[in-house]
């Protein structure tokens, strides 16, 4: 069991709870609790009904001691669009880094209720995770757009200003993506590519299995709902047996409730996190492609120089710049991959332990209800 340095135990049962921030502080080698100077939370979803549209906003709260922020605390309201904008800006301005994924943008209307409590809560958790991942990142958390996202009262005004503020960040964002062919991919990046391919595949399979299980559970639930009442009907016919028969009927009813909760939890907590990681892997592969492009450009330029047969004592500056870009990109990517691997490990450990926990809780509930009926609670407790 995890606990903070001061001994308080930490909740690890929910796969993507907001307290996972504290979990990861404990487990993340890079950051000590004492040196953490930026805390961000997403909560309090609210529905807004306007003439043109209806949408949800979330409260984004920031607490910080960083110099880059004028105030120690901020509280703003943001909608999904704003998160999407932030992510695009981060991709543009930090192309050598892995940007965390957002929950899916488009939701088929009519199939899913965009305003249901469950959907909104699932989305809130994912948005919270998104911001916390950025907060944890030593480079991304200092990004200008991130700062504005957390602090600006009127984000739309800032959005309209567009490219004007890029200068502060100082990096050239325009990477040429014009058809250079890569000679040889360094082994480690090829390995990452292969890994991500297989990883996405396996996660996809797990997603399908989990969905199938939920489907089978719901079909099981349908039958249970007919099963329980029959015992009750029978109880109505009997005298001496009516008590045990009603008892069994009630137990089965409790099973139904417990099963419903299990399926809901899997749908709301387990599946979204899986899908998030599949999206993550997708965007990471795109970053790898960009890296390949940068390397290809450098190689092409280098080759062009070599062919010129002029006696040049040193390499031209633009080729040097390319070399720098390649080395920077590789370094950033390597560091991010390591960080990603660590976080992935913790996230999945938590996710799968959570899944196991949910199932244990289900069986415990069923055990207790039948144990009470048979008058043998001790049988159940002897387990512990």
């Amino acid at each position, binding site marked *: 069991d995890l606990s903070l340095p001061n001994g308080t135990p930490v909740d690890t049962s929910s796969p993507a709870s907001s307290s996972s921030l504290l979990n990861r502080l404990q487990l993340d080698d890079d950051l000590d609790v004492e040196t953490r100077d930026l805390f961000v939370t997403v909560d309090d979803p609210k529905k807004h009904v306007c003439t043109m549209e209806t949408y949800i906003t979330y409260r984004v709260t920031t607490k910080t001691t960083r110099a880059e922020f004028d105030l120690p605390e901020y509280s703003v309201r943001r909608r999904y669009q704003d998160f999407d904008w932030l992510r695009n800006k981060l991709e543009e301005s930090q192309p050598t880094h892995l940007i965390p994924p957002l929950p899916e943008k488009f939701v088929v209307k009519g199939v899913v209720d965009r305003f249901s409590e469950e959907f909104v809560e699932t989305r809130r958790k994912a948005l919270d995770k998104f911001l916390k991942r950025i907060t944890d990142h030593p480079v991304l958390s200092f990004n200008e757009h991130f700062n504005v996202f957390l602090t600006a009262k009127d984000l739309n005004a800032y959005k309209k200003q567009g490219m004007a503020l890029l200068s502060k960040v100082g990096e050239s964002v325009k990477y040429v993506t014009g058809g250079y062919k890569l000679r040889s991919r360094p082994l480690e990046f090829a390995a990452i590519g292969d890994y991500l391919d297989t*990883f996405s595949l396996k996660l996809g399979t*797990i997603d399908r299995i989990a969905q199938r*299980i939920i489907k089978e559970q719901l079909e*099981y639930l349908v*039958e249970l709902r007919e099963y329980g009442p029959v*015992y009750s*009907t029978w109880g109505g016919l009997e005298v001496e047996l009516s008590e*045990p028969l009603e008892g069994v009927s009630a137990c089965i009813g409790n099973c139904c409730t417990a099963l419903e909760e299990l399926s809901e939890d899997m749908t709301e907590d387990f599946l979204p996190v899986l899908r998030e990681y599949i999206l993550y892997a997708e965007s990471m592969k795109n970053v790898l492609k960009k890296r390949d492009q940068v390397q290809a450009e450098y190689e092409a330029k280098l080759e062009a120089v070599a062919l010129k047969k002029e006696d040049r004592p040193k390499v031209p500056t633009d080729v040097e710049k390319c070399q720098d870009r390649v080395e920077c990109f590789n370094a950033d990517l390597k560091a991010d991959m390591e960080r990603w691997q660590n976080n992935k490990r913790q996230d999945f450990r938590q996710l799968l332990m959570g899944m196991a926990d949910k199932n244990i809780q289900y069986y415990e509930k069923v055990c207790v209800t039948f144990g009470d009926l048979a008058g043998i609670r001790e049988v159940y407790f002897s387990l512990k």
Partner: protein
Amino acid sequence: MEDCLAKKMEITVSEAEKRTGRNAMNIQETYTAYLIETRAVESQSEGQCAPVESLWRRYSEFELLRNYLSVTYPHIVVPPLPEKRADFVWHKLSADNMDPDFVERRRIGLENFLLRVASHPVLCQDKIFYSFLTQEGGWKEMVNETGFQLKADSRLKALNATFRVKNPDKRFTELKHYSDELQSVISHLLRVRARVADRLYGVYKVHGNYGRVFSEWSAIEKEMGDGLQSAGHHMDVYAASIDDILEEEEHYADQLKEYLFYAEALRAVCRKHELMQYDLEMAAQDLTSKKQQCEELATGTVRTFSLKGMTSKLFGQETPEQREAKIKVLEEQIQEGEEQLKSKNLEGRDFVKSAWADIERFKEQKNHDLKEALISYAVMQISMCKKGIQVWTNAKECFSKM
């Protein structure tokens, strides 16, 4: 309470064997034979065990025995046989009579039947039953010689009585309704239970897929690999565990089935009562009409329309001698009728008394058995949960080591 056979004799149906032979129509058939073993129980434990006697019987012989008992003891709720064909199956269970699991459960059901009969205070004393257990050859002939088939009431006669009886004992009418409802509710329960079992099977088996994918995933992971791999193994264990769980539940279903079939036995006793009551009512009605005829002849008044009366009016009165003769015949018939009515009345009352005594005995047995069955069902669920908790706890530990 006299000592019933079950206390003096150990009875088991210990084996089942596939046989082929030629049946009555000289057609080759495959059937299953069951080995009945009996051993006298020694009251003194001198360390001496009586020898085990055994003989083989097939299902049709059990049926013959039961038919004999039902006809010979119509006031008894005769224990039912296990089902002839597999019913209420879910997809994994076979509906094939030759399926070894079905045969095994039938073996247990047949043993249960014999033990029920052997522990019944009345039935256990029957000689045919005793011979069934001990006499290999010639038993069929012995049963047929009792002529029990002739005593059997025709279905049509029974149906007729059910519709026309005017004053059956209210308790039997209520009991009949109860057995109808019991039959209906247990059938429903068994059908739904089979569907529930099917679905539960599906849930468990799909988890087996986790085993394979975790294994494949672990191949590309470094630190996470071992944890994933071993967790996958536990998922396989989980998926496999459902087979034993559901097999145990089949025994519970069999216990319910026994009482489903017992409902039919209850109905049979009620039918017999209705038949006897109807018979009695008809006999009383016949007697009344004869008495009336007699009176009319004696007093010369015609109160009821009768063809004889009309014809005598049309063709002239009969002679006093003829009338005297008729009256005498009628008086004899009336006397016979009154004696018959008396004995039928007595029979009817005896039947009601002894049948109701057995019904009370049956009710107690049913309440006891079904209560135990329900509790054992609860215990089964608890055991299933314990297994589930164990597996997921093991998996959780593997995940924690990722």
